[in-house]
């Protein structure tokens, strides 16, 4: 399944081909640890790693910010 991914940290968009259908499959493909990011779906809603994706859906990968 092809997913459009926007990487908030790099202000960059890319397409990713995954075997599964969940957000965690995209993170695994991009070698991004789920413990440092949160994900928004095509409606800009924050979703969990088990969120089920549709073909050509876009998600945003947003770095967690803990500094103050």
């Amino acid at each position: 399944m092809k997913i459009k991914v926007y990487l908030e940290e790099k202000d960059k968009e890319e397409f990713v081909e995954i075997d599964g259908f969940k957000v965690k499959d995209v993170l695994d493909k991009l070698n991004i640890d789920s413990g440092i990011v949160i994900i928004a779906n095509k409606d800009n809603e924050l979703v969990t790693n088990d969120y089920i994706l549709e073909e050509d859906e876009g998600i945003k990968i947003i770095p967690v910010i803990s500094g103050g």
Partner: protein
Amino acid sequence: MRYSRQELFDKIGKEGQNLLKKSKVAVIGLGATGSSSAELLARAGIGELILIDRDVVELDNLQRQALYNEDDVGNVKAEAIKNHLGKINSEVKVRALVMDLDYKNINEIKADLVLDCTDNIETRNLLNEYCHKNRIPWIYSGVIGDNGLVLNFTGDYCFNCVFDNIKPELLGTCDTRGVLNTIVKVISGIQVNEAIKLLTKQDYSNEMLYFNISNNKLEKYKVKKNNKCKVCNSIYDYLDGKKGNDIVKMCGRGVYQVKGRKFDLTKLRLEGKLTKYCLINKDFTIFNDGRAFIKASSEEKAKSLYSKFIGN
């Protein structure tokens, strides 16, 4: 007279100003965002501020921690801020607490609203549980590099609904990624603006506001409650003392905070500058509440140095 320009703004008016005057706000963390947010709140005429921080002012803070100056270096942040705010707005009642927030002392926070200006996820988890249990709204803020975020928690969802799987040890810090003072001011401004909206009964944001100052982009993300969230189901692991650490690596400094028993600083046989709250030398900062900041390469080394020089 002091607040005339604020009262002229129709969303606040005299009624809103009175609400601010009756409000009590706690600011947790007095670093970059905290020092800025505390100043904005004081200037806006908040009735009472509770300021909590565990740290001392260092030279490299001055780049982004706007309320401090060179004379404050080596002083505890809570006291330094209290002194400055007293000269900015003497009408504001300020209570400054030099402490590391934990499950034993968090009850010191008795406020209408809490502003999170901390630099670590652990404290935010504790704060989240406390505020959820006591139905106190709180506003999360965070900055790093050229990014920052603000998110209000008023009961519909909580911090754990969004951030339950975070690995704090893998997150970037100001020491590894740096931080611009400009994003600090923007995020602090947004945080305090949301605080004023909440306190003056205006509509406030229920989305995560994420801003990048390099490309001037503000994104808004919708947040939903997680029905399986432990905190929303009143399970409070941090508040009950089941989670949280006695040894903490300070935000990207190669320094560990070790907690021990309280003692008399004057009885320590260590060289350094002694103040009302702490003893500082090049390797340690030791507080009279039993905490010590120790330069070390690991937790074990920090514990070992603590035992060697301070005792058990």
